[in-house]
């Protein structure tokens, strides 16, 4: 796995963040909003790496986050030397794409006219720019595909990766997710969402109008058919069926983070008795946040460690993980619901 997020880069940063729990977000002045917006941004220092980004001179933050996370996933796997790049595929999920560069491109149209716009900005404003750079940096010669959806892009990316592996189209697949912050997006978040005044995303409030702290980042997984010593977990994407989370030795992670409206549907899901947690308050509200939660879940399985919920507001008295505890975790189930009550899951198994 590889990850770039507000708490840094790499699995050690992820582990540290899960151990430390919630930290206050940054606050940013956004033109057009009356109050400062709490956000979890990726720092400029995190995106500095001359070696990995050698071919990314013109790349924007959207691409840089992706390239770093993808490269780290390969290194982290221990398989860097043995991967056949002709048989390696890349699937990237994004909800909003490289919107910052899209608006930079529109600046060109508005300021200079249709005939004097930047070709560099245009070619980086397309959703598949990240996959292109990941392929160029890592010399990936298998199929590359970018998909977009506001809720289930990551889940469908996993589904497709499994299909590619099953039909032997690839021997391994880099599956990633990336979404970024940006001024216009922050303005829209401030207008359309409910920014958390205390900076805390409260997954277990199951609110009809949940609070949000917009975040950004990228996370990648290297998936193979066979397990290896360095493997974190077996992965299985699936559909949500109500009542499918009985009490047991698993851990249920809910992907709600204030980004998608009414979260009351999650209350039904947690009623089955399985211990629940959510690490979304560590990552922020990201539309492809399910990928980040899956990374946390994979670490839970690998380390056999249930990390404490970073935000433990629990008005409905759900059985949540309130302390970090080592102990057997047979599987982790990540759940994502959309506003119509449709749901998808990612099961991570030891």
């Amino acid at each position: 796995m590889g990850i770039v997020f507000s708490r840094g880069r790499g699995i050690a940063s992820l582990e540290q963040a899960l151990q430390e729990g919630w930290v206050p977000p940054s606050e940013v002045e956004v033109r057009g909003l009356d109050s400062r917006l709490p956000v979890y941004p990726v720092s400029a220092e995190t995106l500095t790496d001359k070696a990995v980004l050698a071919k990314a001179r013109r790349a924007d933050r959207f691409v840089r986050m992706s390239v770093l996370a993808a490269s780290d996933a390969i290194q982290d796997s221990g398989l860097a030397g043995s991967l056949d790049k002709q048989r390696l595929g890349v699937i990237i999920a994004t909800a909003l794409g490289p919107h910052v560069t899209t608006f930079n491109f529109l600046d060109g149209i508005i300021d200079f006219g249709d005939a004097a716009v930047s070709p560099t900005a245009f070619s980086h404003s397309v959703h598949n720019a990240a996959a292109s750079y990941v392929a160029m940096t890592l010399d990936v010669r298998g199929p590359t595909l970018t998909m977009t959806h506001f809720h289930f892009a990551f889940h469908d990316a996993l589904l497709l990766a499994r299909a590619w592996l099953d039909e032997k189209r690839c021997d391994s697949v880099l599956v990633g997710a990336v979404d970024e912050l940006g001024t216009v997006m922050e303005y829209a978040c401030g207008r359309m969402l409910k920014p958390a005044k205390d900076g805390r995303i409260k997954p277990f409030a199951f609110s009809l109008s949940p609070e949000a702290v917009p975040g950004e980042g990228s996370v990648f997984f290297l998936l193979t058919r066979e397990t290896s010593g360095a493997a974190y977990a077996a992965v299985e994407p699936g559909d949500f069926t109500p009542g499918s989370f009985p009490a047991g030795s698993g851990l249920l992670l809910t992907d709600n983070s204030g980004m998608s409206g009414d979260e009351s549907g999650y209350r039904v899901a947690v009623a089955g008795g399985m211990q629940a947690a959510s690490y979304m308050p560590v990552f922020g509200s990201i539309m492809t946040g399910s990928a980040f939660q899956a990374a946390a879940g994979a670490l839970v399985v690998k380390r056999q460690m249930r990390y404490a919920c970073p935000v433990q507001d629990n008005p409905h008295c759900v059985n949540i993980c309130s302390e970090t505890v080592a102990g057997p975790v047979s599987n982790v189930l990540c759940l994502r619901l959309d506003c119509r009550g449709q749901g998808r899951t990612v099961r991570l198994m030891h």
Partner: protein
Amino acid sequence: MGAISAAGGDIAETLECFAAGRRNLGKVTLFASSLDYPVFEVRRPFVYSSKYKSRTIQLVLTALDEALAGAGLDRDMSGRRVGVCMGTTVASQLNDVDFYQSYRKEGAAGMEPVENFLKGNLAEVVSAELRATGPAVTVVNACSSSSDAIGVALSWIRNGICDLVIAGGGDELNRIPLCGFGSLSVFSHKPCRPYDRDREGLNLGEGAGVVILESERSARARGAVPGLFVAGYGAACDAHHLTAPRPDGSGLETAVRGSLAEAGVQPSEVCFVNAHGTATRDNDKVEGSVLARVFGTDAKVLSTKGYTGHTLGAAGALEAVFSALALREGWIPASAGFENKDDEIPIGAVRERTAITGQYAVSTSLAFGGNNASLVIGRCS
């Protein structure tokens, strides 16, 4: 199958346009722009204009209706595990210039464009229109988006994820890519000339293509007798450059050979290739060299972009439909715009309407960003 483009509002009109060799291009009328490159706009009005603001969605739903009617399927697929996989480029972006201009100028903007954007994921809209439950994926892979969408659909069916998939893609003619591709200096000021010695670049177009893919078992269960099928899909990345193809074409060659291997088809069994053929100097040279290597210099090659322009996210699906139609009808149109063979390209395109009798065709797509896709389409004998 369903198709809408400048060549025609449906399949029948398109075939008639191909037969007549008519090229419906003209100046941009859909929006104001200082750019005067010729484009291929769809002139026909749309059924869905009042329900959806997005022209791309309207194009796709129009093609969808034709595909459903042709397949004898009801629009209401409630409760059926039907997948939807659509390719696009423009429809995935929040690129409303008025919205952004308002925010830049006033520090405020109405949220309606954002709300429409958040409700406008192409595959999700199609899935909701059909009341389908099943995966709904929007592929944003630049020029190979809808070829890849069909490839995804094939994987879903082969892996038992769905029995039926609505696949394809669409893109409207939009000011943003017009400006963007203009800045990349890839446009021609004249009607495009794919594979021609004197080609100067591409013309932008718009449209949508939809295919309904179904497992054999599901088709038999409802008594349907399919005549055409997707036999194979191959995809491979150049890993070379954001906007230029790998000069040796190795990515495309891998994709083409991969699709043939998957289909169990020899190059000699392919009766024609519907090439990506954008008419840029780079694309046609690289692609032509690969096609000559794989299929031989005598292979029949055409580019239908001379009739539709480059429809970006719709291109792969439209060209898959055109390839399927050609197999069904037994002819391919002249490769509009091709007159003189380029000595630097080992293969030329067909100059006139040509009869074809084989069972298989290949359709290729080369995307900005370096992905290459190839589909093998077959006709049931």
